[in-house]
């Protein structure tokens, strides 16, 4: 039997797509989340509703969108609204099931820093900032974080909380009475981390071929491992075929990790 080979971007994308449920309303970003959503739509979630912070609802992009506001998202979409409305009527009202998040740093409790490395007033590295992530992390019913597994990306504590995970622990998030449940999974190229009852991210699954040691070595805190550690299902030829042949044939986003 032939071994199926893939890049880490393909691994991330396919595992992200599996987190989506049919009928979910998902706040889509460009890049891997966009591929993951389109893959889900073509496999197990044909009724996925894709909405974009640019104000596009029910997009059916005919080509791979190259920015969050690509015109291909609009032509043939179900609806377009203003930026205020997409955040207010859709996200804040509780109409968004899923948000995808990423960032320069993700900490032990799933808080994300996309703002600054160093001091805020005297930045060592100035990052892009919140964009929509501050609100998505709070108001989408479920959030997923998609990111490569690297030690510098997973510090014990972020320098700046751009968006809320479980703050200093699940009880603090609960007290804040946010609409959304918070980050339910962090998908990396090594496996999946999920919050435990305290909100701390623990390793709950490894991708085929990855090891606990790799995950622990590439995490900035003392990573706990779930007692029932699972292995994620192998990528299928169907999933990879759709990704490679239909969604990103030029490998604009899929080349990462080759």
């Amino acid at each position, binding site marked *: 039997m032939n071994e199926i080979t893939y890049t880490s971007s393909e691994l991330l994308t396919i595992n992200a797509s599996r987190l989506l449920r049919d009928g979910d309303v998902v706040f889509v970003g*460009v890049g891997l989340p966009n591929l993951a959503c389109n893959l889900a739509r073509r496999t197990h979630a044909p009724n996925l509703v894709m909405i974009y*912070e*640019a*104000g*596009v609802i029910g997009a059916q992009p005919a080509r791979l969108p*190259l*920015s*969050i*506001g*690509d*015109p291909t*998202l*609009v*032509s043939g979409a179900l609806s*377009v*609204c*203003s*930026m*205020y409305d997409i*955040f*207010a009527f859709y*996200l*804040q009202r509780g109409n968004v099931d899923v948000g995808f998040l990423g960032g320069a740093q993700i900490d032990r409790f799933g*808080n994300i820093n996309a*703002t600054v490395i160093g001091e*805020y*007033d*005297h*930045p*060592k*590295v*100035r990052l*892009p*900032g*919140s*964009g*929509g*992530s*501050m*609100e998505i*992390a*709070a*108001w989408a019913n479920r959030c997923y974080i998609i990111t490569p597994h690297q030690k510098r990306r997973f510090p014990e504590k972020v320098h*700046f*909380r*751009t*968006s*809320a995970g479980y*703050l200093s622990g699940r009880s*603090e*998030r609960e007290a*804040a*009475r*946010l*609409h959304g449940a918070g980050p339910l999974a962090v998908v990396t190229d090594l496996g999946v981390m999920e919050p435990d009852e305290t909100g701390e991210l623990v390793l709950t699954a490894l991708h085929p071929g990855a090891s606990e040691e790799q995950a622990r070595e590439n995490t900035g805190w003392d990573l706990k491992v779930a007692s029932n550690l699972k292995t994620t299902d192998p990528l299928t030829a169907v999933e990879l075929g759709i990704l490679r042949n239909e969604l990103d044939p030029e490998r604009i986003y899929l080349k990462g990790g080759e």
Partner: protein
Amino acid sequence: MTKLITLSEAINKFVEDGDTVYAAGFTHMIPFAAGHEIIRQEKKNLILARATPDLIYDQMVAAGCAKKVIFSYIGNPGVGSLRFVRAEIEAGRLEWEEYSHFSMISRLQAGATGLPFMPMNPTAAKDLEKANPFYRTVIDPYTGGEVVVVPPLKPDVAIVHVQRVDAEGNAQIWGIIGEQKEAAFAAERVIVTAEEIVDEAIIRSDPNRTVIPGFIVDAVCHVPYCAHPSYTQGYYDRDNSFYLAWDEISKTPESVNAYLDEWVYGIADRMEYWEKLGAEVHERLKVASLPSATVDYGKY
């Protein structure tokens, strides 16, 4: 009463040194031509407000027009970092004021609707709220809880690019409508640039499509291809290769200056800019037609 003037006249007349400028458009219809004209006219000490500064603010900052940026996301959309703005901030040479997208847009909404502030649901990510004193809280009189609010943003001038407008400034937009309407209503002065100047009868044939009413508009400028390298839905595509190119150009002040010399200072207006881009670019950005269904308003 016609408000048709050239873009050069409009910038000269309605943008002053020190103004807070909101050049609107969320990835779509960003008025690059207006930004270039501001650079050519060497406006100074501007406060540049935009949810997503995009390349146009990188260029205006690089040209020395700005003392401050107000934003919610500084990136080169779909590419990565907005190098020049980022470097200026890291070097301590550029003031900034920062929001999340929703709080930025809520500031515009408050400005556009004349409200004293806009409330928002909690995000529990308090670091930005602590860093920016414009975030405040009020007590919810129904629950006793704390509600985060932001104050109105009322730019001195908004610049909005649209697909079609009549000579009085009644403007229609389709595709991504971002924060164009809010910016226009929030601002004290409004400059509309447009792909097409149309007869009032076209506007009146579909009043639900009109986003900005003429009576709040100060200048109407006919500027085809105003939005390049961003795009105008139904007119031309985004020039993604320029977004990628800028990632290289913006790595050094020298290459930025060379770009500005060639593509901004060195040319007179958008028409010359578009011609200079050349046939290959024109061809690449062309869009096939995909018309909307019509609707019937009825004669009453």
